[in-house]
């Protein structure tokens, strides 16, 4: 189970970082989502992996560490809020610059739209 878990975290993180480095807003959002899944699973594993044990003290002889589960829960909630904000911002970026590049413009944008951006920036 440990190997499978490690592989999953590795795959999620690697795909996340790869997508993050694509200079387009949609892959960046997806990349951050995958990265946060990877991180959440990692955080989950910091309390050691165990099956069939409850994270409640006193219900069984041995129990699973409840603290990482609390941490993961917080991290998931925060991650949702952040991702939602990022999606809205990415849409705004698309609307403002008519382009989904993270820098707002591609290197070989037509000259006309570039001039337009300069005018708005002034």
């Amino acid at each position, binding site marked *: 189970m440990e190997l499978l878990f490690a592989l999953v975290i590795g795959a999620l993180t690697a795909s996340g970082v790869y997508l993050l480095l694509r200079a387009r807003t949609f892959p960046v959002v997806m990349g951050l989502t995958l990265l*946060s899944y990877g991180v959440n699973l990692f955080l989950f*594993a910091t309390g050691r992996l165990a099956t069939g044990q409850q994270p409640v003290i006193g219900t069984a002889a041995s129990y699973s560490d409840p603290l990482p589960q609390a*941490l993961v829960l917080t991290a998931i909630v925060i991650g949702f809020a952040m991702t939602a904000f990022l999606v809205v*911002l990415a849409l705004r970026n698309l609307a403002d610059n008519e382009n989904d590049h993270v820098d707002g413009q591609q290197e070989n944008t037509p000259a006309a739209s570039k001039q337009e951006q300069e005018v*708005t920036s002034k």
Partner: protein
Amino acid sequence: MTHWLIAPILIPLLGGILQVFMGYAPIGLRRTLAITTTVLMLASAVVLLVLASDDSYRIYAFGNWQPPFGIVLVLDRLAALMLVLTAILGLFCHIYASGGADEGNRQFHTLFLFQLMGLNIAFLTGDLFNLFVAFEVLLIASYGLLMHGGGTTRTVPGLHYVVLNLVGSALFLIGVGMIYSATGTLNMADLAVKIPQVSGSNVNLVKAGGMMLLVVFGLKAAILPLCFWLPKAYAKATAPVAALFAVMTKVGIYAIIRVFPLIFGEGAGELANLGMDWLFPLALITLSMGVIGALGANNLKTLVAWQVIISVGTLLAPIALGSEAGLSAALFYLVSTTWTVAALFLVSELVASQRGLAADNIVPAPRMHHRTFLSVLFLIGAVAAGGLPPLSGFFGKLLILQSVEPGVEMAWLWSVLMVGSFFTLIAYSRAGSIVFWRNLDGHVESPAPLNNRVSISTGILTCMTMVIVVLAGPLSDYTRATAEQLHNNSGYINILQTPVHVPQNPIVGEKN
């Protein structure tokens, strides 16, 4: 009395929640309530400063859950100093914002108060995971504030800022997870006890976790390889927001001061002084980079944004050396530079409002209205930021220079700081002389009027540098005591032994 500890968090929280439901209330009412909240927050911070100045640690355990498992707030001199610093800055930025910058966004005051709440949680918390939560609270408010005021120029820097900080949060969680898996605790005082006992392969795990935390704090503080997002984002933000953000990089520095000497300090065995060898050269390069950026800036706000990076470099260099005198000097300079930089952001905005199309670009333009008032404010700000004698920036830098012991570090720090200050002065004189002296014929036709709130808040924030000079004695005594307290961390560890639970109800106590 320990219940006072939660006041700086509760006050902006309640004020902010109130603002959420007041989106359609008259703007005057919203402003009055919001500023009342900020004033109350300042009052509570001052109370905590008085409480903390007796050198003891006070803790507040949420729901009476005992540390190390419950979340605790810890008040010491450093936390109290940062609270007062933020509260004063927040108050003046808020008054400035209520002069008109808060229009066009019904939730501006909500976001502003939540941002202050996030900052206060970060300063008070005694728990690494809660520090992460505080970072997220202040960041999500700052995302909203950064976007405030609209304009298409703000989306791209904002997007970069958000993405970078989300990656930073992911790294923070990984670092926290690594430290937790090796030590089984996240309470800072408990970590200070457990980290020296870490052995075997866990040492490397903790080391990696610690270095990751340093990277994350470095990203917040904008140390060199992680600083390029800052100038664009800060220069594009609305003035009061940019001014409030002046304290955001200081949160990164605060986290470094809080976490590293405590849990990776002298007593941490194999992990002693983790990362500090890296920090010193990086701080000096950051300083140089900031100066180069300031010289190349083509508008006032960008110039001030690079000043933020200069001050980060200046602050981290003495901190990385790990001496008590260095830490004390850095704290003195931190107070001074935060207010100065914030005041300069506000002044730049006022200048921009008087120059029509030229805005705050460093180009000749028609003569502006209120030229004397604005130029005096800019002069005071520039002298304080550059570090010329009569003002507080000079004393801060002098203390930093004095704190280094002779040796290689001294040679490096002295030369970089002196040459850096010289070129900073050149950058300010160039900007100031072009903006204020090189006038084209005529006046700008219809400049925005300066109202009282805007000019008074900018004036007072600028003059805080003189207040620091007048109070230099008490302030430096305070920072010296703070550095002493931070270096002697047995007191902090002792909070674990302090009984938190005081039976409130004697009848329940008897039954037990």
